[in-house]
């Protein structure tokens, strides 16, 4: 009997402990749950509203239709801007990777005077307000006739692309085994061969990861492009912004359809980057 009452007491103690832990964790879970609910709610309402016939003051829209979405695509030439965004971003990503892989290699493998100073210089564009250099870039581009051109859009994207790919690539190269390079050189490979046959193939996962990251960043680039873009030469998000900031002119489902067309590629790239990084981790784990 005595033993039984003791187990009851420890049981009660255990239950109190569980209850206490639950109460302690509750505010955290409420916070996390609330935040996630707001984010999901915002995303879902954009989807629902874009395809709704009429939605006013009820929990769900009155009916669903594709007409706003198709109307948005035809009326705003979304395909044109979408293509333009993809093309400029794609070309700029390729150019910034080609330009920064050699530099990142030097940073990861060599010591030279002013190294930390130069590294700081590459990060400076992130530390200064974008406007501080975007405004003079726009002024110079208008003077040179580069503003509102395809080339101009690509050049301006490099402002995001080069520093960002440097910052991502350096740790990737540092993680490679330098002995492979030494072995290649001792077997008679010259620098170019060593670089193209040994370094670049090993770097492909790193380059893929940074390409996707830069792509997402550039796709969302805004300030400089807004300043140098014209009515015919602009990216999708600048176009969506200019429609949005001219308030009240368009019905809400139309604006949501526009936003959705901007959101879908970003969602696609995000899943792509998650997939790639998971594969990378698995490879490293091996």
């Amino acid at each position, binding site marked *: 009997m005595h033993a039984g009452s003791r187990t009851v007491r420890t049981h009660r103690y255990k239950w109190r402990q569980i209850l206490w832990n639950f109460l302690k*964790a509750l505010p*955290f879970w409420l*916070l*996390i749950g609330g*935040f*996630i609910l707001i*984010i*999901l*709610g*915002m*995303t879902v*309402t*954009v989807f629902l509203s874009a395809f709704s016939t009429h939605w006013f*003051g009820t929990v769900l829209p009155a009916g669903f239709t594709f007409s706003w979405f198709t109307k948005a695509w035809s009326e705003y030439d979304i395909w044109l801007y979408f293509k333009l965004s993809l093309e400029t971003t794609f070309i700029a990503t390729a150019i910034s990777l080609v*330009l*920064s892989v*050699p*530099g990142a290699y*030097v*940073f990861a*493998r*060599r*010591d*030279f005077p002013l190294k930390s100073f*130069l590294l700081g*210089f*590459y990060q*400076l*564009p992130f530390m*200064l*307000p974008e*406007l*501080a*250099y975007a*405004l*003079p*870039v*726009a*002024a*110079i581009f208008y003077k040179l006739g580069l503003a509102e051109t395809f080339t101009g859009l690509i050049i*301006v994207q*490099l402002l995001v692309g*080069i520093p960002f790919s440097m910052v991502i690539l350096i740790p990737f190269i540092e993680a490679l085994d*330098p002995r492979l390079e030494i072995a290649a050189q001792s077997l008679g490979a010259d620098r170019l061969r060593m670089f193209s046959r040994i370094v670049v193939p090993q770097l492909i996962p790193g380059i893929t990861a940074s390409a996707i990251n830069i792509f*997402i960043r550039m796709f*969302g680039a*805004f*300030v400089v492009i807004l*300043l140098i873009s014209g009515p015919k030469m602009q990216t999708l*998000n600048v176009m969506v*912004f200019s429609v*949005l*900031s001219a308030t009240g002119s368009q019905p*809400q489902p139309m604006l*949501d359809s526009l*936003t959705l067309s*901007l*959101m879908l590629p*970003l969602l696609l790239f*995000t899943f792509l980057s998650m997939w790639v990084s998971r594969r990378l981790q698995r490879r490293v784990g091996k």
Partner: protein
Amino acid sequence: MKADHQDTGHFQKDTLLLLPSLLPLLLIFLYPLIQGILLTLHKNGEAGFTFYNYIQFFTVRDFSNTIFRTLVLVIPSSILEMTLAFAMAYHLRKPIRGKGLLNGLIMFPLTLGPLIVAVGMIDFFKPNGWFNLFLMHLGILHQPAQLLYNFWGTFISLTILGVGFIFSNLVGLMDSIDPSFEQAARSLGANGFQTFIRVFYPLIRSGVWNIFSLNVIMQLAVYSSAIIVGNPASSTRVFSVVAFEQAMQYFNYNMAETIAVIMAAVQFICLGVVHYIRKKGYVGSASTFK
């Protein structure tokens, strides 16, 4: 790498490989930046050095008020974001099922960017949107709260984006802290609160302040959410709003650049303050024994 240390200080041919990435950056970043600073010292369309633009900024109320309006928006929201994101990241540090998904969802706004978040807010926080319907259904609110096209619209948008940003950085920072420090403290008899205050926080504080200042840098430049969900005519008339207005409506790049330079100066003052606070404690590695 170690073998290369003997080369330190000597010019190497390899260093020339830096040029392909350095030259474009000099041309499209450093040169415009210097040009920009020179721009601020001219009156629009006139030659000759003056401080006209700076005097104008500090004497015209519409310009000088932007400093106050931006800071009132950014500093409180940054503090709130840090508190929320810290609580979430600290709680999600333990191994929990579905942790990856929760982390991904909290960082999700960061991927979407300010533009999409602003549109999502219009749908979600409007007077008859889900947020207000839900709170009125619960009886917390009797009238829909006005959360759009005013100060609070921009504040909420900044908070949602900032929590995502700070959280994503804190996850990495907290992962780098060796849990054996805390285990040691607990086994020596400290309770959870003491362990947090005496062991965990001192290890992490330097990183936390770093993330805080990065977030402030990002948010001082707030523009699209101030336009779309704020009230750009009065309460959210921040630096960028006025600078864009000067550049794109009045084509006065000189004044616009002046505003951008003052924005950079305010940013550096904020960074200096944060750095001062940060320096007053232990600054060093938190993963020594890992």
